[in-house]
């Protein structure tokens, strides 16, 4: 095999999900080349990742979207011979891999969680309620891998960086502006700690209590669909099959009964805590630590003591 790993870059730095994608490439085997589209310093950093034999740097100051990166992938494939094109299941990977695959007439395999040799992969479907073992027969296999399922590769390598020229894509949008979340809280999908509230919160104002706990633990606030449907919080906070799928180190479900569609969105969290006054709530069947209590007493006490 000969893999091309499309790096996630974060301005002048390499994004950490790149390290997981390189590990997945290592499990496939063979030679590993990293494609870095954007900043030169970030591309150089990709050369420090263990297992990388070469970095292709496609320099651009313009917006790096799926259109541009798919063009860079095509340029890399024209300059070398690859059996696999791999990216993390990040914003960049989710945009670039399918676009590049369609151009190559290939069927992407997305969100891979296990590699079984060169052509067989395991991926979730139905929000992780079923796993599919998929064999891909395309000449060049295009895939995205879920970063949390692959360890981060080590660093200390010094692979050479080569310039790659690519044509500008006329379809590529221009960057206008970016806005991070208004608060200092981390993004829900990337947070190490998520404090989520359900219908038991009774109203939107009571979510302030969860924000205080989230701030103390450096986490993000989420919600169940029931809380969103009841109008307590905006739907961008929704965790679940029709919302965001999260897998933090610590997930605290407060006043959430645990409907199947919510469980799908958080059951891969490392440690799950449930606080609910109904001891029959299904959420307790997936939680590591359950506390049967009135959340309006328990949450302030937890905030004070943790």
């Amino acid at each position: 095999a000969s893999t091309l790993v499309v790096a996630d870059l974060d301005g002048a730095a390499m994004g950490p999900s790149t390290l997981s994608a390189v590990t997945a490439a290592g499990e496939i085997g063979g030679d590993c080349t990293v494609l870095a589209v954007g900043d030169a310093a970030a591309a150089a950093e990709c050369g420090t990742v263990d297992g990388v034999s070469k970095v292709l740097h496609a320099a651009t100051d313009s917006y790096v979207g799926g259109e541009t990166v798919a063009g860079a992938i095509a340029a890399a494939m024209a300059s070398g011979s690859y059996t696999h094109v791999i990216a993390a299941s990040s914003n960049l990977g989710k945009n670039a891999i399918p676009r590049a695959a369609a151009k190559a007439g290939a069927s992407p395999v997305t969100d891979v969680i296990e590699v079984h040799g060169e052509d067989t992969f395991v991926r979730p479907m139905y929000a992780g309620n079923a796993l599919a073992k998929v064999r891909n027969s395309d000449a060049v296999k295009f895939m995205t891998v879920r970063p949390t399922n692959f360890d981060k590769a080590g660093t200390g390598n010094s692979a050479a960086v080569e310039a790659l020229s690519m044509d500008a894509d006329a379809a590529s949008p221009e960057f206008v502006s970016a806005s991070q979340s208004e608060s200092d809280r981390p993004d829900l999908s990337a947070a190490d700690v998520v404090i989520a509230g359900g219908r038991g919160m009774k109203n939107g104002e009571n979510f302030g209590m969860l924000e205080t706990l989230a701030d103390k633990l450096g986490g993000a606030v989420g919600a169940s669909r029931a809380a969103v449907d009841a109008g307590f919080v905006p739907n961008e906070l929704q965790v679940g099959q029709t919302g965001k799928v999260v897998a933090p180190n610590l997930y605290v479900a407060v006043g959430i009964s645990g409907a199947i569609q919510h469980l799908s969105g958080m059951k891969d969290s490392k440690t799950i805590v449930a606080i609910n006054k109904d001891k029959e709530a299904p959420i307790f069947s997936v939680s590591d630590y359950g506390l049967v209590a009135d959340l309006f007493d328990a949450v302030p006490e937890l905030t004070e003591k943790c």
Partner: protein
Amino acid sequence: MRVLVGVKRVVDYAVKVRVAADKKAVDLANVKMSMNPFCEIAVEEAVRLKEAKKATEVIAVSIGPKASAETLRTALAMGADRGIHITTDLRTDQELGSLSVAKILAKVAEEESPDAIILGKQSIDGDFGCTGSMLASLMDVPQCTFAAKIDFDASTVERETDTGTEIVKFPGLPAVFTADLRLNEPRYATLPNIMKAKKKKIDAKSIEDLGVELSEGNEVLEVFEPPPREAGILVEDVDGLVDKLKNEASVI
């Protein structure tokens, strides 16, 4: 502006799916089916464009078995003007892959020449999340994916990213848009509109009639359920919880 919107019939989001006995697929027998939630958002966006007099016609397209016509009727009841049903007996959760779907939609787009194509960001059955980007790729047009807000006057789209949102200006139409969760909140079809939708036209044709050659690189060897999460313990009080989180799980 004419808008083409994709709608997919999938297992309802509230159903707990089970793997079939042969471990080749999820069991779809006697399971409640609904419109894919992200497709509902796409339809809502298209209908709002019609109501704002920005879109002249909203065409809903669905690919699937006979019963997908019901999903198209729902889109028509929400406000789409007419439907196109591309019929197939292939399972749309795993046999008909995103490349084939993108090819079919590209062919429909060639025949209908819409200015904007709005799809859901992913379907909640196969969870591939590829169709929008692949369709845009085959059509060589911009892909405005994970849209949280679309402004057709300014040609800008606010997109969900890994860390928040970004606003980009797309070079123009035609373009493909994929709907993310906060783009809008879809309406429920009202009874009078459901009645009216029965009179709207749905054109049905098979993939063969459309003249699209399918290509599928993925073969599902096995479908299985993830290992169940082991049930944990109940703690007595907040002190007990804090102790476990600090000393056993080491997460705080």
